């Protein structure tokens, strides 16, 4: 099937505690932090590749197109999924500050109209803004069904539908969406048998996590096309619905850590100091 995967670059999430707020509070900076592909989007790429290949054989069953909205240098971000095996890229040039989830969803809807994929597979949330809204908005704009927080995917109904296990507060909710659809993925989508496309042998187990790009993949990715367009070319206004009046650091936790010597001392502190026992 033809799968569109939107990917965002984010400041290295493992060092999110090094993010800084400008002196006047008007902006945040990630200076000194590397750009990384949003981890959930990387998982979406992996899931898309698994859906579209005969596992282990190297045969592909359809195209995986990756798209990123952002400044021109997000082309670098797009090279990674291309090196993992995606077919081609689309770069929608826009200033980061003008892109809230609503603008992203409207732009993606226009792209979907152009590309007519069978499936949009994306991260459940970008771990910079932690909004968790673009996929749901996109599905609504398209009038498509959706499955958010996907932890498993299975192609059913002769390729016309997907059975999706969703990670919800109270357990696992399973539903079936008729394609075309929007699916947003959760962490567990990259466990070894989370994706079943009906073509890959049922006993095939993938490695845990997203695949690394091979050297060959990296070389090939350099030649893969990345179409470059502007947000305005899609007829989308760069006007976010959510703006930020200011940013601040969270208040520090009061008091430093106390190292206790023994279980007895811990219980004593919890009783008399913290008064929680």
């Amino acid at each position, binding site marked *: 099937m033809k799968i569109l995967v939107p990917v965002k670059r984010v400041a290295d*999430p493992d060092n999110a505690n090094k993010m800084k707020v400008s002196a006047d509070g008007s902006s945040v900076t990630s200076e000194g932090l590397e750009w990384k592909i949003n981890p959930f989007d990387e998982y979406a790429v992996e899931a898309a590749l698994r859906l579209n290949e005969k596992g282990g054989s190297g045969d592909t069953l359809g195209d995986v197109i990756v798209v990123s909205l952002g400044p021109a240098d997000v082309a670098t971000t797009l090279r990674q999924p291309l090196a993992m095996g995606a077919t081609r890229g689309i770069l929608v040039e826009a200033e980061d500050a003008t892109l809230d989830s609503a603008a992203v969803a409207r732009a993606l809807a226009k792209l979907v109209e152009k590309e007519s994929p069978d499936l949009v597979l994306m991260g459940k949330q970008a771990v910079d803004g932690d909004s968790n809204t673009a*996929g*749901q908005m996109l599905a609504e704009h398209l*009038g498509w069904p959706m499955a*958010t927080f996907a932890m498993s995917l299975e192609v059913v109904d002769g390729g016309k539908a997907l059975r999706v296990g969703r990670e*919800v507060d109270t357990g696992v909710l*399973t539903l079936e969406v008729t394609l075309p659809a929007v699916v947003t993925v959760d962490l567990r989508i990259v466990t070894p048998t989370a994706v079943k496309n009906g073509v890959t042998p049922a006993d095939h187990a993938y490695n845990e996590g997203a695949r690394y790009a091979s050297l060959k993949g990296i070389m090939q990715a350099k030649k893969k096309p990345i179409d470059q367009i502007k947000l305005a070319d899609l007829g989308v206004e760069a006007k976010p619905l*959510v703006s*930020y009046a200011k940013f601040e650091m969270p208040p520090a*936790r009061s008091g430093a850590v106390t190292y206790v010597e023994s279980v007895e001392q811990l219980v004593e502190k919890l009783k008399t100091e913290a008064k929680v026992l």
Partner: protein
Amino acid sequence: MADILVVGEILDGSFRKSSLSAVRFAAEVASATGGAFDILVAGDGAAGAAAEAAKYGARKVLSAQIDGGYVAEKVAATVAKAARDGGYAIVTATAGTTGKDLMPRVAAKLGAGVASDIASVSVDGGAITYRRPMYAGNIFGHARVESEVAVVTVRQSEFEPAGEAGGASPIEAAEVVADPAAERVKFVSLESQKSERPDLTEADVVVAGGRALKSAENFGSVLEPLVDALGAAMGASRAACDAGYVPNDLQVGQTGKVVAPKLYVAVGISGAIQHLAGMKGSKTIVAINKDKEAPIAQVADYFLVADLFEAVPALTAAVKKAKA
């Protein structure tokens, strides 16, 4: 003046308690702006849920019976219609997985921006500002929603559940609106493990285990006795969930549940940024870890450097004694 519509969640035919955080938020904004708030319950078992929702001081409760298991496509159009008809300035829900699933879809129908997972709200004249964690809780942004209607999801751990208000709100039927998208999605099943323990997001005490527990059996034999001695809820790190030691819905963190109990005990958890994001709002934090340098020390109040397989049974015994 801002009128607010709270979208309440129905779980097993009842009004889900987590929705009371959104009710608290709505009541706060309504009183600050001189507006009113209503509650809408849409789904299977709406009548029963509406009767329960009527206890919390809403101007009225709207009820829409929609048969079958929850999928957003079956509910969103009904919510959007009620939101439009009522002329609400804000449409809100608690930011659980249902609220996060449904509300952006509603927002797209309304042309509204979403302030998601907010930690607090402030009203200054006509301007409403939503303070929300970003970057795994390492930055707080003060968001303004520029659209005419704002859709807001609220973080359960930051808004105390609303209390009963005395009396009962009048209940009205809301119009159920069909959505073509709903014909292309089918609810299959909801599998949940029932537990006798308190709910993770509502518990006063949470004991969470990490990769260091090494197995599901050890969660049962080593951690559970401590959980029960403290009358706590059980939580876990992603690594423990991924390894299959405990169900995924026990995961605490940026992508799991956000908790803020009076006491959080992290056992054999290193304290990765993504884990801290889900528990650093806890009042008192205890870490039990072999490694004195583990990053959990950045947020812990008390740190016991020890092998958990010795320390946890000893702590269980000591807690039992202290409580006896």
